[in-house]
Protein backbone atom coordinates (compact mmCIF):
# COMPACT_ATOMS: atom_id res chain seq x y z
CA UNK A 1 0.00 0.00 0.00
CA UNK A 2 2.66 2.44 1.07
CA UNK A 3 4.93 1.85 -1.91
CA UNK A 4 2.75 3.56 -4.51
CA UNK A 5 2.90 6.97 -2.95
CA UNK A 6 6.53 6.65 -1.95
CA UNK A 7 7.64 5.97 -5.48
CA UNK A 8 7.23 9.63 -6.31
CA UNK A 9 9.62 10.48 -3.52
CA UNK A 10 12.09 8.39 -5.45
CA UNK A 11 12.83 5.99 -2.67
CA UNK A 12 11.52 2.52 -2.13
CA UNK A 13 10.94 2.19 1.56
CA UNK A 14 8.57 -0.27 3.10
CA UNK A 15 7.50 -0.56 6.68
CA UNK A 16 7.96 3.04 7.75
CA UNK A 17 5.43 3.56 10.48
CA UNK A 18 4.78 7.17 9.58
CA UNK A 19 2.58 6.37 6.64
CA UNK A 20 0.15 9.29 6.95
CA UNK A 21 3.16 11.58 7.19
CA UNK A 22 4.56 10.16 3.97
CA UNK A 23 1.16 10.52 2.34
CA UNK A 24 1.06 14.16 3.40
CA UNK A 25 4.54 14.82 1.98
CA UNK A 26 3.58 13.14 -1.28
CA UNK A 27 0.37 15.14 -1.52
CA UNK A 28 2.25 18.36 -0.83
CA UNK A 29 4.74 17.61 -3.59
CA UNK A 30 1.95 16.79 -6.04
CA UNK A 31 0.16 19.99 -5.07
CA UNK A 32 3.24 22.16 -5.57
CA UNK A 33 4.05 20.50 -8.89
CA UNK A 34 0.36 20.58 -9.87
CA UNK A 35 0.84 17.02 -11.04
CA UNK A 36 -1.08 14.18 -9.42
CA UNK A 37 -0.11 11.51 -11.92
CA UNK A 38 2.24 9.84 -9.45
CA UNK A 39 -0.44 9.31 -6.85
CA UNK A 40 -3.62 7.26 -6.77
CA UNK A 41 -5.80 9.66 -4.81
CA UNK A 42 -8.66 7.22 -4.35
CA UNK A 43 -6.45 4.53 -2.86
CA UNK A 44 -4.73 7.04 -0.62
CA UNK A 45 -8.06 8.44 0.55
CA UNK A 46 -9.29 4.94 1.44
CA UNK A 47 -6.15 4.37 3.46
CA UNK A 48 -6.48 7.63 5.36
CA UNK A 49 -10.08 6.85 6.28
CA UNK A 50 -8.89 3.68 7.97
CA UNK A 51 -6.63 5.80 10.15
CA UNK A 52 -9.47 7.64 11.87
CA UNK A 53 -9.50 6.35 15.44
CA UNK A 54 -12.57 5.53 17.52
CA UNK A 55 -12.06 8.86 19.29
CA UNK A 56 -12.18 10.98 16.13
CA UNK A 57 -8.54 11.88 15.60
CA UNK A 58 -6.19 10.16 13.16
CA UNK A 59 -3.28 7.88 13.92
CA UNK A 60 -0.20 7.29 11.79
CA UNK A 61 -1.51 3.90 10.65
CA UNK A 62 -4.86 2.09 11.00
CA UNK A 63 -5.37 1.16 14.65
CA UNK A 64 -2.70 3.55 15.90
CA UNK A 65 -3.54 6.06 18.61
CA UNK A 66 -4.98 9.33 17.34
CA UNK A 67 -2.26 11.94 17.41
CA UNK A 68 -2.07 15.68 16.63
CA UNK A 69 0.59 15.24 13.98
CA UNK A 70 -1.14 12.30 12.36
CA UNK A 71 -4.44 14.16 12.36
CA UNK A 72 -2.87 17.13 10.63
CA UNK A 73 -1.30 14.91 7.98
CA UNK A 74 -4.55 13.04 7.34
CA UNK A 75 -6.76 16.12 7.08
CA UNK A 76 -4.21 18.20 5.14
CA UNK A 77 -3.75 15.37 2.64
CA UNK A 78 -7.49 14.99 2.15
CA UNK A 79 -7.75 18.75 1.67
CA UNK A 80 -4.87 18.85 -0.83
CA UNK A 81 -6.38 15.97 -2.76
CA UNK A 82 -9.72 17.77 -2.90
CA UNK A 83 -11.76 15.45 -0.68
CA UNK A 84 -12.71 17.98 1.98
CA UNK A 85 -14.33 21.23 0.93
CA UNK A 86 -13.52 24.66 2.31
CA UNK A 87 -14.95 25.80 5.63
CA UNK A 88 -17.00 22.66 6.03
CA UNK A 89 -18.44 23.79 9.38
CA UNK A 90 -20.35 26.68 7.93
CA UNK A 91 -22.26 24.37 5.64
CA UNK A 92 -25.68 23.45 6.96
CA UNK A 93 -25.40 19.78 6.26
CA UNK A 94 -22.08 18.24 7.03
CA UNK A 95 -21.75 15.01 5.19
CA UNK A 96 -18.26 13.87 4.67
CA UNK A 97 -16.09 10.87 4.05
CA UNK A 98 -14.71 11.24 7.57
CA UNK A 99 -16.58 11.61 10.84
CA UNK A 100 -16.32 15.38 11.12
CA UNK A 101 -18.25 15.90 14.39
CA UNK A 102 -16.12 13.31 16.17
CA UNK A 103 -12.94 14.80 14.73
CA UNK A 104 -14.02 18.31 15.72
CA UNK A 105 -14.71 17.34 19.28
CA UNK A 106 -11.37 15.50 19.51
CA UNK A 107 -9.61 18.64 18.29
CA UNK A 108 -11.35 20.97 20.71
CA UNK A 109 -10.66 18.61 23.60
CA UNK A 110 -6.94 18.88 22.85
CA UNK A 111 -6.89 22.36 24.39
CA UNK A 112 -5.79 21.71 27.96
CA UNK A 113 -6.39 23.60 31.19
CA UNK A 114 -3.16 25.55 30.75
CA UNK A 115 -4.47 26.89 27.42
CA UNK A 116 -2.00 24.99 25.28
CA UNK A 117 -2.73 22.11 22.94
CA UNK A 118 -1.77 18.51 23.61
CA UNK A 119 -1.06 15.92 20.95
CA UNK A 120 -3.03 13.16 22.65
CA UNK A 121 -5.46 12.98 25.58
CA UNK A 122 -3.88 13.15 29.04
CA UNK A 123 -0.53 14.33 27.76
CA UNK A 124 1.11 17.66 28.52
CA UNK A 125 0.58 20.67 26.26
CA UNK A 126 3.31 21.21 23.71
CA UNK A 127 3.86 24.33 21.57
CA UNK A 128 3.81 22.56 18.22
CA UNK A 129 0.31 21.11 18.66
CA UNK A 130 -1.02 24.65 18.63
CA UNK A 131 -0.22 24.36 14.94
CA UNK A 132 -0.88 20.66 14.25
CA UNK A 133 -4.30 20.65 15.92
CA UNK A 134 -5.02 24.35 15.46
CA UNK A 135 -4.55 24.08 11.72
CA UNK A 136 -6.94 21.11 11.52
CA UNK A 137 -9.55 23.34 13.13
CA UNK A 138 -8.59 26.09 10.70
CA UNK A 139 -9.02 23.74 7.74
CA UNK A 140 -12.46 22.72 8.99
CA UNK A 141 -13.55 26.28 9.74
CA UNK A 142 -13.62 25.82 13.52
CA UNK A 143 -10.48 27.67 14.61
CA UNK A 144 -12.45 30.76 15.61
CA UNK A 145 -14.10 28.73 18.37
CA UNK A 146 -10.94 27.96 20.37
CA UNK A 147 -9.92 29.95 23.45
CA UNK A 148 -7.36 32.12 21.66
CA UNK A 149 -6.50 34.18 24.74
CA UNK A 150 -5.67 31.07 26.78
CA UNK A 151 -3.59 29.63 23.94
CA UNK A 152 -1.66 32.86 23.55
CA UNK A 153 -0.90 32.89 27.29
CA UNK A 154 0.44 29.34 27.10
CA UNK A 155 2.55 29.97 24.00
CA UNK A 156 4.17 33.00 25.62
CA UNK A 157 5.30 30.83 28.54
CA UNK A 158 7.15 28.75 25.96
CA UNK A 159 8.87 31.76 24.42
CA UNK A 160 12.51 31.88 25.32
CA UNK A 161 14.38 34.93 26.54
CA UNK A 162 16.89 34.08 23.82
CA UNK A 163 14.19 34.10 21.17
CA UNK A 164 12.28 31.21 19.71
CA UNK A 165 10.01 28.72 21.41
CA UNK A 166 10.46 25.56 23.41
CA UNK A 167 8.27 22.48 23.56
CA UNK A 168 7.27 23.00 27.18
CA UNK A 169 7.20 26.14 29.35
CA UNK A 170 10.55 27.17 30.75
CA UNK A 171 12.68 24.89 28.59
CA UNK A 172 15.33 25.81 26.05
CA UNK A 173 14.09 26.70 22.56
CA UNK A 174 14.67 24.66 19.43
CA UNK A 175 14.18 25.35 15.76
CA UNK A 176 11.23 22.99 15.30
CA UNK A 177 9.14 24.42 18.15
CA UNK A 178 10.13 27.93 17.17
CA UNK A 179 8.82 27.39 13.66
CA UNK A 180 5.54 25.91 14.87
CA UNK A 181 5.29 28.52 17.60
CA UNK A 182 5.36 31.22 14.93
CA UNK A 183 2.90 29.27 12.80
CA UNK A 184 0.59 29.08 15.81
CA UNK A 185 0.85 32.83 16.32
CA UNK A 186 0.04 33.39 12.67
CA UNK A 187 -3.12 31.32 13.13
CA UNK A 188 -3.90 33.60 16.07
CA UNK A 189 -3.53 36.51 13.61
CA UNK A 190 -0.59 38.03 15.47
CA UNK A 191 0.24 41.36 13.80
CA UNK A 192 3.33 41.29 11.65
CA UNK A 193 3.16 37.61 10.75
CA UNK A 194 2.35 36.32 7.28
CA UNK A 195 -0.85 34.41 6.57
CA UNK A 196 -0.55 30.64 6.18
CA UNK A 197 -1.19 28.02 3.56
CA UNK A 198 -2.00 25.65 6.39
CA UNK A 199 -2.28 22.45 4.35
CA UNK A 200 1.32 22.86 3.23
CA UNK A 201 2.57 24.02 6.62
CA UNK A 202 4.00 27.14 5.01
CA UNK A 203 3.17 30.80 4.70
CA UNK A 204 0.94 31.70 1.76
CA UNK A 205 3.78 33.57 0.10
CA UNK A 206 6.06 30.52 0.37
CA UNK A 207 3.39 28.10 -0.81
CA UNK A 208 1.95 30.14 -3.65
CA UNK A 209 4.78 32.43 -4.59
CA UNK A 210 2.56 35.36 -3.87
CA UNK A 211 0.63 36.83 -0.94
Amino acid at each position, binding site marked *: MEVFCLSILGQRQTSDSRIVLLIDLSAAVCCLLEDWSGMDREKVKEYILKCQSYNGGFGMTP*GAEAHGGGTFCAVASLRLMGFIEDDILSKSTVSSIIDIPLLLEWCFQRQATDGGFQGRPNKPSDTCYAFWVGSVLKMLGGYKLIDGKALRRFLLTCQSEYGGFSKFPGELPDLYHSYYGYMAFSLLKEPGLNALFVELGLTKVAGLGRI
Partner: protein
Amino acid sequence: MMGSDTEEEGKAVPLRQRPEWSDVTPIPQDDGPNPVVPIAYKPEFEETMDYFRALYFNDERSPRALQLTHQAIAFNPGNYTVWHFRRLILETLNSDLREELDYIEQIAKINTKNYQIWHHRRWVAEKLGNDAMAKELQFTKKILSLDAKNYHAWSHRQWVLQTLGGWEDELDYCNQLLEEDIFNNSAWNQRYLVVTQCPNLGGLRAMRESEVKYTTKAILANPENESPWTYLRGLYKGDTNSWINDPEISSICLKVLTAKAYPVFALSILLNLLCHGYQGNQELRDAVGALNSSISGKPDSDLAKAVCSVLEHVDPMRANYWRWRKSNLPSAIIDISTGIESL
Protein backbone atom coordinates in the same frame (compact mmCIF):
# COMPACT_ATOMS: atom_id res chain seq x y z
CA MET B 1 35.04 -0.57 20.00
CA MET B 2 38.16 0.31 21.96
CA GLY B 3 40.27 -2.73 22.85
CA SER B 4 43.66 -2.84 21.20
CA ASP B 5 42.97 0.33 19.26
CA THR B 6 43.03 2.40 22.40
CA GLU B 7 46.05 4.59 22.76
CA GLU B 8 45.21 6.27 26.01
CA GLU B 9 42.27 5.58 28.20
CA GLY B 10 39.02 6.55 26.46
CA LYS B 11 40.72 7.82 23.27
CA ALA B 12 40.77 5.59 20.20
CA VAL B 13 43.57 5.68 17.65
CA PRO B 14 42.51 7.86 14.72
CA LEU B 15 41.61 5.89 11.60
CA ARG B 16 44.27 7.66 9.53
CA GLN B 17 46.91 6.24 11.90
CA ARG B 18 45.69 2.67 11.71
CA PRO B 19 47.54 0.45 9.22
CA GLU B 20 44.45 -1.58 8.41
CA TRP B 21 42.82 1.60 7.02
CA SER B 22 45.83 2.80 5.04
CA ASP B 23 44.28 1.66 1.75
CA VAL B 24 41.34 4.03 2.15
CA THR B 25 41.38 7.64 1.00
CA PRO B 26 38.92 9.57 3.21
CA ILE B 27 36.42 11.74 1.35
CA PRO B 28 35.68 15.10 2.96
CA GLN B 29 32.13 16.42 3.12
CA ASP B 30 31.31 18.62 0.14
CA ASP B 31 29.42 21.61 1.47
CA GLY B 32 29.87 23.52 -1.77
CA PRO B 33 31.83 26.75 -2.32
CA ASN B 34 29.86 29.01 0.04
CA PRO B 35 28.35 26.86 2.77
CA VAL B 36 25.52 28.43 4.73
CA VAL B 37 25.83 27.75 8.46
CA PRO B 38 28.72 25.28 8.22
CA ILE B 39 28.84 23.03 11.27
CA ALA B 40 31.94 22.94 13.46
CA TYR B 41 32.32 19.17 13.62
CA LYS B 42 34.61 17.55 16.16
CA PRO B 43 37.74 16.07 14.49
CA GLU B 44 36.75 12.51 15.50
CA PHE B 45 33.31 12.91 13.93
CA GLU B 46 34.73 14.42 10.77
CA GLU B 47 37.24 11.64 10.35
CA THR B 48 34.70 8.89 10.91
CA MET B 49 32.36 10.41 8.32
CA ASP B 50 35.22 11.01 5.84
CA TYR B 51 36.09 7.32 6.00
CA PHE B 52 32.41 6.35 5.88
CA ARG B 53 31.96 8.31 2.67
CA ALA B 54 34.95 6.54 1.16
CA LEU B 55 33.53 3.09 1.89
CA TYR B 56 30.00 4.11 0.96
CA PHE B 57 30.89 5.53 -2.43
CA ASN B 58 33.05 2.50 -3.08
CA ASP B 59 30.18 0.27 -1.92
CA GLU B 60 32.51 -1.72 0.31
CA ARG B 61 30.34 -4.09 2.31
CA SER B 62 32.90 -5.59 4.65
CA PRO B 63 33.25 -6.30 8.38
CA ARG B 64 35.28 -3.14 8.81
CA ALA B 65 32.54 -1.18 7.04
CA LEU B 66 30.00 -2.64 9.43
CA GLN B 67 32.11 -1.57 12.39
CA LEU B 68 32.49 1.88 10.89
CA THR B 69 28.72 2.29 10.62
CA HIS B 70 28.55 1.41 14.31
CA GLN B 71 30.95 4.27 15.02
CA ALA B 72 29.12 6.70 12.75
CA ILE B 73 25.80 5.80 14.37
CA ALA B 74 27.28 6.39 17.80
CA PHE B 75 28.15 9.92 16.69
CA ASN B 76 24.80 10.55 15.03
CA PRO B 77 22.07 7.92 15.22
CA GLY B 78 19.90 10.11 12.99
CA ASN B 79 22.02 9.65 9.88
CA TYR B 80 19.72 7.54 7.74
CA THR B 81 22.33 7.10 4.98
CA VAL B 82 24.56 5.30 7.45
CA TRP B 83 21.67 3.10 8.59
CA HIS B 84 20.79 2.33 4.99
CA PHE B 85 24.35 1.30 4.21
CA ARG B 86 24.49 -0.77 7.39
CA ARG B 87 21.47 -2.73 6.15
CA LEU B 88 23.16 -3.37 2.81
CA ILE B 89 26.25 -4.62 4.62
CA LEU B 90 24.26 -6.86 6.94
CA GLU B 91 22.58 -8.43 3.93
CA THR B 92 25.78 -8.94 2.00
CA LEU B 93 27.62 -10.41 4.98
CA ASN B 94 24.58 -12.49 5.86
CA SER B 95 25.04 -11.35 9.44
CA ASP B 96 23.21 -12.89 12.37
CA LEU B 97 20.31 -10.53 12.71
CA ARG B 98 19.50 -11.75 16.21
CA GLU B 99 22.73 -10.09 17.32
CA GLU B 100 21.59 -6.99 15.49
CA LEU B 101 18.48 -6.92 17.67
CA ASP B 102 20.70 -6.80 20.75
CA TYR B 103 22.70 -3.95 19.26
CA ILE B 104 19.54 -2.00 18.46
CA GLU B 105 18.24 -2.50 21.97
CA GLN B 106 21.38 -0.97 23.44
CA ILE B 107 21.13 2.23 21.46
CA ALA B 108 17.33 2.40 21.50
CA LYS B 109 17.33 2.59 25.29
CA ILE B 110 19.07 5.96 25.12
CA ASN B 111 17.36 7.10 21.92
CA THR B 112 13.80 5.95 22.49
CA LYS B 113 12.32 8.41 19.97
CA ASN B 114 14.75 8.06 17.09
CA TYR B 115 12.89 7.21 13.87
CA GLN B 116 15.90 5.62 12.18
CA ILE B 117 16.47 3.17 15.00
CA TRP B 118 12.85 2.05 15.04
CA HIS B 119 12.81 1.72 11.28
CA HIS B 120 15.95 -0.42 11.47
CA ARG B 121 14.37 -2.56 14.15
CA ARG B 122 11.33 -3.07 11.96
CA TRP B 123 13.53 -4.11 9.02
CA VAL B 124 15.40 -6.66 11.14
CA ALA B 125 12.21 -8.01 12.66
CA GLU B 126 10.65 -8.38 9.21
CA LYS B 127 13.66 -10.39 8.06
CA LEU B 128 13.54 -12.64 11.10
CA GLY B 129 9.80 -13.09 10.80
CA ASN B 130 7.93 -15.20 13.33
CA ASP B 131 11.11 -16.02 15.23
CA ALA B 132 11.27 -12.40 16.28
CA MET B 133 7.74 -12.19 17.64
CA ALA B 134 8.42 -12.90 21.32
CA LYS B 135 11.54 -10.77 21.38
CA GLU B 136 9.77 -7.80 19.77
CA LEU B 137 6.93 -7.93 22.28
CA GLN B 138 9.51 -8.10 25.05
CA PHE B 139 11.52 -5.23 23.60
CA THR B 140 8.55 -2.90 23.18
CA LYS B 141 7.44 -3.78 26.69
CA LYS B 142 10.84 -2.69 27.98
CA ILE B 143 10.67 0.62 26.15
CA LEU B 144 7.12 1.17 27.34
CA SER B 145 8.25 0.55 30.91
CA LEU B 146 10.47 3.61 30.48
CA ASP B 147 7.71 5.63 28.78
CA ALA B 148 4.29 4.03 28.63
CA LYS B 149 3.16 6.35 25.84
CA ASN B 150 6.11 6.09 23.46
CA TYR B 151 4.42 6.29 20.07
CA HIS B 152 7.20 4.44 18.24
CA ALA B 153 7.02 1.55 20.67
CA TRP B 154 3.25 1.27 20.35
CA SER B 155 3.47 1.50 16.57
CA HIS B 156 6.07 -1.27 16.48
CA ARG B 157 4.11 -3.40 18.94
CA GLN B 158 0.94 -3.06 16.86
CA TRP B 159 2.87 -4.05 13.76
CA VAL B 160 4.27 -7.12 15.54
CA LEU B 161 0.82 -8.26 16.67
CA GLN B 162 -0.77 -7.70 13.28
CA THR B 163 2.09 -9.24 11.28
CA LEU B 164 3.63 -11.87 13.54
CA GLY B 165 0.93 -12.52 16.12
CA GLY B 166 1.26 -12.92 19.88
CA TRP B 167 -2.11 -11.56 20.93
CA GLU B 168 -2.69 -14.00 23.78
CA ASP B 169 -1.46 -11.83 26.64
CA GLU B 170 -2.21 -8.44 25.14
CA LEU B 171 -5.47 -7.72 26.96
CA ASP B 172 -3.74 -8.61 30.23
CA TYR B 173 -0.94 -6.25 29.31
CA CYS B 174 -3.46 -3.46 28.74
CA ASN B 175 -5.04 -4.25 32.11
CA GLN B 176 -1.65 -4.00 33.75
CA LEU B 177 -0.81 -0.67 32.14
CA LEU B 178 -4.20 0.77 33.01
CA GLU B 179 -3.79 -0.37 36.57
CA GLU B 180 -0.53 1.57 36.68
CA ASP B 181 -2.08 4.61 35.02
CA ILE B 182 -5.80 4.70 34.19
CA PHE B 183 -5.15 7.94 32.29
CA ASN B 184 -2.85 6.28 29.76
CA ASN B 185 -4.68 6.90 26.50
CA SER B 186 -2.20 4.74 24.57
CA ALA B 187 -3.19 1.78 26.70
CA TRP B 188 -6.88 2.48 26.12
CA ASN B 189 -6.16 2.66 22.39
CA GLN B 190 -4.31 -0.63 22.50
CA ARG B 191 -7.20 -2.15 24.38
CA TYR B 192 -9.47 -1.09 21.53
CA LEU B 193 -7.14 -2.73 19.05
CA VAL B 194 -7.15 -5.99 21.01
CA VAL B 195 -10.92 -5.99 21.52
CA THR B 196 -11.57 -5.36 17.84
CA GLN B 197 -8.78 -7.38 16.21
CA CYS B 198 -7.60 -10.14 18.50
CA PRO B 199 -8.42 -13.34 16.62
CA ASN B 200 -9.60 -15.35 19.62
CA LEU B 201 -11.75 -12.81 21.44
CA GLY B 202 -14.75 -12.78 19.12
CA GLY B 203 -14.77 -9.16 18.06
CA LEU B 204 -16.31 -5.93 19.30
CA ARG B 205 -19.93 -7.08 19.72
CA ALA B 206 -18.94 -10.16 21.65
CA MET B 207 -16.69 -8.17 23.93
CA ARG B 208 -18.97 -5.18 24.37
CA GLU B 209 -20.74 -6.17 27.57
CA SER B 210 -17.61 -6.97 29.54
CA GLU B 211 -15.83 -3.95 28.15
CA VAL B 212 -18.70 -1.63 29.10
CA LYS B 213 -18.44 -2.95 32.67
CA TYR B 214 -14.69 -2.38 32.74
CA THR B 215 -15.00 1.08 31.25
CA THR B 216 -17.84 2.34 33.44
CA LYS B 217 -15.85 1.28 36.49
CA ALA B 218 -12.93 3.36 35.25
CA ILE B 219 -15.24 6.30 34.56
CA LEU B 220 -16.74 6.24 38.03
CA ALA B 221 -13.28 6.18 39.58
CA ASN B 222 -12.14 9.20 37.54
CA PRO B 223 -14.94 10.95 35.64
CA GLU B 224 -12.49 13.67 34.61
CA ASN B 225 -10.53 11.10 32.58
CA GLU B 226 -11.33 11.61 28.88
CA SER B 227 -9.99 8.23 27.76
CA PRO B 228 -12.62 5.81 29.07
CA TRP B 229 -15.42 8.08 27.86
CA THR B 230 -14.22 8.06 24.26
CA TYR B 231 -13.47 4.35 24.60
CA LEU B 232 -17.04 3.76 25.74
CA ARG B 233 -18.35 5.53 22.67
CA GLY B 234 -15.93 3.55 20.53
CA LEU B 235 -17.45 0.30 21.78
CA TYR B 236 -20.60 1.24 19.88
CA LYS B 237 -18.90 2.36 16.71
CA GLY B 238 -21.09 1.64 13.72
CA ASP B 239 -24.03 0.71 15.95
CA THR B 240 -25.82 3.96 16.78
CA ASN B 241 -29.02 2.13 17.62
CA SER B 242 -27.40 0.21 20.47
CA TRP B 243 -25.54 3.34 21.55
CA ILE B 244 -28.67 5.38 22.11
CA ASN B 245 -30.75 2.52 23.47
CA ASP B 246 -28.33 0.86 25.88
CA PRO B 247 -29.47 1.87 29.38
CA GLU B 248 -25.88 1.44 30.63
CA ILE B 249 -24.84 4.57 28.76
CA SER B 250 -27.48 6.96 30.03
CA SER B 251 -27.06 5.36 33.43
CA ILE B 252 -23.36 6.17 33.67
CA CYS B 253 -24.04 9.77 32.62
CA LEU B 254 -26.69 10.06 35.30
CA LYS B 255 -24.47 8.53 37.96
CA VAL B 256 -21.71 11.03 37.27
CA LEU B 257 -24.05 14.00 37.16
CA THR B 258 -25.86 13.13 40.38
CA ALA B 259 -22.58 12.41 42.17
CA LYS B 260 -21.65 16.05 41.49
CA ALA B 261 -18.44 14.78 39.99
CA TYR B 262 -16.65 16.36 37.02
CA PRO B 263 -19.59 16.62 34.62
CA VAL B 264 -18.06 17.69 31.30
CA PHE B 265 -17.65 14.32 29.61
CA ALA B 266 -20.93 12.99 30.96
CA LEU B 267 -22.69 16.01 29.51
CA SER B 268 -20.90 15.79 26.18
CA ILE B 269 -21.79 12.10 25.88
CA LEU B 270 -25.39 12.94 26.76
CA LEU B 271 -25.38 15.63 24.08
CA ASN B 272 -24.01 13.09 21.62
CA LEU B 273 -26.81 10.67 22.52
CA LEU B 274 -29.47 13.33 22.15
CA CYS B 275 -28.12 14.39 18.76
CA HIS B 276 -28.38 10.78 17.63
CA GLY B 277 -32.00 10.46 18.63
CA TYR B 278 -31.93 9.46 22.29
CA GLN B 279 -35.01 10.88 24.00
CA GLY B 280 -33.69 11.29 27.52
CA ASN B 281 -35.51 10.36 30.73
CA GLN B 282 -36.91 12.30 33.66
CA GLU B 283 -33.98 11.65 35.96
CA LEU B 284 -31.53 13.02 33.43
CA ARG B 285 -33.74 16.03 32.81
CA ASP B 286 -33.83 16.70 36.54
CA ALA B 287 -30.09 16.29 36.91
CA VAL B 288 -29.33 18.60 34.00
CA GLY B 289 -32.06 20.99 35.10
CA ALA B 290 -30.55 21.22 38.58
CA LEU B 291 -27.11 21.97 37.14
CA ASN B 292 -28.54 24.49 34.72
CA SER B 293 -30.44 26.33 37.45
CA SER B 294 -27.51 26.52 39.83
CA ILE B 295 -25.18 27.70 37.09
CA SER B 296 -27.08 29.95 34.75
CA GLY B 297 -30.44 30.31 36.45
CA LYS B 298 -32.06 30.04 33.02
CA PRO B 299 -34.14 26.89 32.72
CA ASP B 300 -34.54 25.36 29.30
CA SER B 301 -37.18 22.79 28.46
CA ASP B 302 -35.06 21.61 25.58
CA LEU B 303 -32.72 19.06 27.13
CA ALA B 304 -30.06 19.34 24.46
CA LYS B 305 -29.99 23.12 24.73
CA ALA B 306 -29.85 22.88 28.51
CA VAL B 307 -26.89 20.50 28.26
CA CYS B 308 -25.10 22.97 25.99
CA SER B 309 -25.79 25.84 28.38
CA VAL B 310 -24.33 23.93 31.30
CA LEU B 311 -21.31 22.94 29.24
CA GLU B 312 -20.63 26.57 28.34
CA HIS B 313 -20.23 27.23 32.04
CA VAL B 314 -18.53 24.11 33.33
CA ASP B 315 -16.15 23.85 30.37
CA PRO B 316 -15.30 27.52 29.72
CA MET B 317 -12.25 26.74 27.59
CA ARG B 318 -14.68 25.38 24.99
CA ALA B 319 -17.49 27.86 25.64
CA ASN B 320 -17.48 29.04 22.03
CA TYR B 321 -17.70 25.44 20.82
CA TRP B 322 -20.61 24.56 23.11
CA ARG B 323 -22.38 27.74 22.07
CA TRP B 324 -21.88 26.77 18.44
CA ARG B 325 -23.18 23.27 19.20
CA LYS B 326 -26.30 24.81 20.82
CA SER B 327 -27.10 26.77 17.70
CA ASN B 328 -26.36 23.83 15.41
CA LEU B 329 -28.40 21.07 17.00
CA PRO B 330 -29.84 18.58 14.52
CA SER B 331 -33.14 19.89 13.23
CA ALA B 332 -34.97 16.71 14.03
CA ILE B 333 -34.52 16.48 17.78
CA ILE B 334 -37.96 15.81 19.16
CA ASP B 335 -38.40 17.37 22.55
CA ILE B 336 -40.55 14.86 24.38
CA SER B 337 -41.75 17.22 27.09
CA THR B 338 -43.12 19.76 24.67
CA GLY B 339 -43.89 17.30 21.88
CA ILE B 340 -42.57 19.91 19.48
CA GLU B 341 -39.91 19.20 16.95
CA SER B 342 -37.12 21.59 17.96
CA LEU B 343 -35.52 23.42 15.13
